[in-house]
């Protein structure tokens, strides 16, 4: 008994002895907030903070899905295009349903249902091509990225698809209304994050994702259905894209070829900043959430200040990604203490 309690005591002690890998993103976010406050106290106004959280919800939700894909050793480049394509189809379906179903809640629910089915379907296609088709995930999703993007352009005939004005009225609250002081998108974000965290950290499925990303052969020999688990990660990714799209469409009420451009890179960046290893085998949902918040915060701060041009948003985000990965390198100490 004593040894057991000593054991746990030692373990908690270890957890407290600053684990930069885990705490890094949190510290970075805190620093950014302090900088934001110093540059302009309005940064911490309630309005700005809710705005910031709402904005980060899109990338954050998609990045939760990306955490699964990347942890299992895959990558999904198609998410931005997928979001655009799903928005497009959603809008077309809802506009056409007005005649039969009217412009009330049922039509919106129909649109949401379609979005979820499309997300699952698109994710399944990515997953099946990677596993059954034995094509590298990078190539598969590079291909579907092009396909989805061109589909939305085609549907919109090169222009913009706009949601019928009456439905917009019904759908609007999903983005603009609040519950207990927090906008709906933030609640969705929180819900997805909690589910994602439980799924990755507490279930056998999460353990299987980690094992596959760490060593696929070991996973196979350990009675894990590797193809099924990998396909499921892409389906989860697709589902996350659906959720993000559902809360995104009421914001502008339109979809065009420029919807969701570069979201895939922002999502992957959020995942990597959060400490998930790009080559798989180690994933952190909490880190991903922080990563998404960090990316949005940078853009937000640049809006607040004239010190750095807002056009340099991408530069700042890029720098943060590189610095984050440099700091996370576990071999810092080893390389300092000599060879081997």
């Amino acid at each position, binding site marked *: 008994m004593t040894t057991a309690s000593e054991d746990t005591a030692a373990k908690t002690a270890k957890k407290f002895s600053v684990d930069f890998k885990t705490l890094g993103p949190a510290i970075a976010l805190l620093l950014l907030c302090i900088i934001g406050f110093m540059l302009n106290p309005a940064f911490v106004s309630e309005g700005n903070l809710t705005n910031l959280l709402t904005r980060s919800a899109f990338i954050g939700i998609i990045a939760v899905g990306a955490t699964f894909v990347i942890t299992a050793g895959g990558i999904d480049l198609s998410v931005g295009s997928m979001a655009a394509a799903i928005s497009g189809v959603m809008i077309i379906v809802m506009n056409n349903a007005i005649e039969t179903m009217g412009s009330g809640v049922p039509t919106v629910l129909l649109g949401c249902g379609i979005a979820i089915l499309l997300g699952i379907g698109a994710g399944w296609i990515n997953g099946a091509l990677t596993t059954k088709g034995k094509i590298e995930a990078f190539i598969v999703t590079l291909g579907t990225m092009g396909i989805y993007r061109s589909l939305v352009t085609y549907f919109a005939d090169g222009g913009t698809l706009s949601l019928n004005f009456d439905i917009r009225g019904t759908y609007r609250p999903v983005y603009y209304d609040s519950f207990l002081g927090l906008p709906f998108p933030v609640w969705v974000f929180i819900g997805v994050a909690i589910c994602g965290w*439980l799924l990755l950290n507490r279930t056998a499925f999460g*353990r*299987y994702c980690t*094992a596959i990303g760490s*060593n696929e052969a*070991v996973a*196979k*020999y350990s009675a894990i259905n590797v193809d099924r688990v990998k396909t499921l990660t892409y389906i989860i990714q697709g589902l996350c894209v659906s959720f993000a799209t559902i809360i995104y469409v009421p914001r502008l009420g339109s979809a065009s070829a420029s919807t969701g451009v570069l979201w895939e890179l922002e999502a992957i960046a959020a995942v990597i900043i959060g400490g998930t290893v790009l080559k798989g*085998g180690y994933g952190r949902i909490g880190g991903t959430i922080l990563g998404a918040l960090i990316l949005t915060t940078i853009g937000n701060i640049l809006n607040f200040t004239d010190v750095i041009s807002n056009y340099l948003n991408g530069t700042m985000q890029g720098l943060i990604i590189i610095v984050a990965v440099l700091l996370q390198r576990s071999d810092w100490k080893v390389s300092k203490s000599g060879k081997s």
Partner: protein
Amino acid sequence: MSMEVSASAAIIEAVNISKSFGPIPVLFSVSMDVRPGEVHALIGENGAGKSTLMKILSGFHDPTSGQIRLDGKRTPLPPNGAAEHLGIVLIHQELNLAEQMTVEENVFLGREIRTNGFLDRAAMRAEVQKYLDEIGLDILPTDRISKLTIAQKQMVEIVKAVSRNARILIMDEPTAVLTEEETEVFFRQVKKLKESGVGIVFVSHKLNEVKEIADRVTILRDGQWIDTRSSQDLTPDTMAQMMVGRELSDLYPPMHEADVDADVVLEVKNLRAQGVDNVSFGLRKGEILGFSGLIGSGRTAVFEAICGLSPIESGEIRLFGQDASNLSVAEARDAGLAYLTKDRKEKGLLLDKQMRPNLTLFALPKFVRNLSIDRKAEENALTRAIRRFDVRARDSSITVGKLSGGNQQKLLLAKVMECEPKIVIIDEPTRGIDVGTKQQIYHFIAALAAEGVSVVVISSEMPEIIGTCHRVVVMREGHITGILTGDHINENEIMRYAAGLKREELH
């Protein structure tokens, strides 16, 4: 004896070498020397410090104290393989060859012969051909490494070393992955090198080989130098005893007679799969069935097919009387059938993870309560497994990659046993692990069988097959050439079936 040997002065001497990694000492004032034209075997259990000593002798590690003398002069060795320029070459167990390049390109890698800035392929090819002829290796300089057998790759490593004027060749378990035939060829080359005055340090767990090839033997135990002796004064038994520090009279546990009337739990008929040609056999409850044969004879392929790891082309498999011809790995596991891979690093364990997730990965559904993993149950399982299998780790939070080979093997065994299989297939149960751990594993296998579990032992080490198995199936080129029982289980018989000199008419 000793006068005669010491007549030739040592090329390299390690004097009172100690080494610590951080606070953990791994070598305590160890001394060893290598003379020209001798094979000096270095033996000891896993974790005895052999690898560390080899790395110090070749400059990959610095000693914490003590010195290296080269030709009698104190010489600090340059790091990271630069000691090659001094004629000291370490051949790693995982060979260091560029798989997609040719033999010639590999041999000259980093010091290509150039004329006018362009590669002089003809000159390099001729040079390599000369070495290949000398060593009697029947491959072309233009052959791609990926096409060669492991034994040939090893010879290419040696050619590479010789072409760099190696005076000391340090080899880490070169024969671990070789068949007996290949080992013989390998030993002929080693003898030639010896004659040309190269000093060879040779690490092996196969003590018969050590006896055969080595001139002198240095024994390490727990980081301490135990003895250096002429191999003529040693037998494999005495070597084993000195390594472990205790009697090893019972390396193999006493064998309980198998019950010939016990139920047949696994029956395979006319199985065909990739590398498997018309294989039929039966396995009884509580039986230990050996699978012998040369490497690549299809032993592993048979069981990967049975356990759902690779597809079956045709044939019938009955598990406890039920048809089981198309099981997934998980279904096989749930039916009580488990396969323990021979490749623990690549297919067995997640080296970058801790022991707990590794232990429970195979039997994970068992640890799920209300959709989530029961960590407490996992911790308990780990505590139990550590005790039952005697897994020794500094603390339970280190990654599995940092465990010694023997402890990794025990953990892998624990992982597979976690699903409480009724039939367990153990592929190369003791590859690359020390005598003490081997003994533990043999006893464990015997205990399992006594409890009524059926065990299949696939092994390239004949003594192991002979010492542990009730019946032995011998395979060659994808099919079974013989099934031996009782007195017929001996090295001669097995070898004749494995080499295709003898063939039983089955059915």
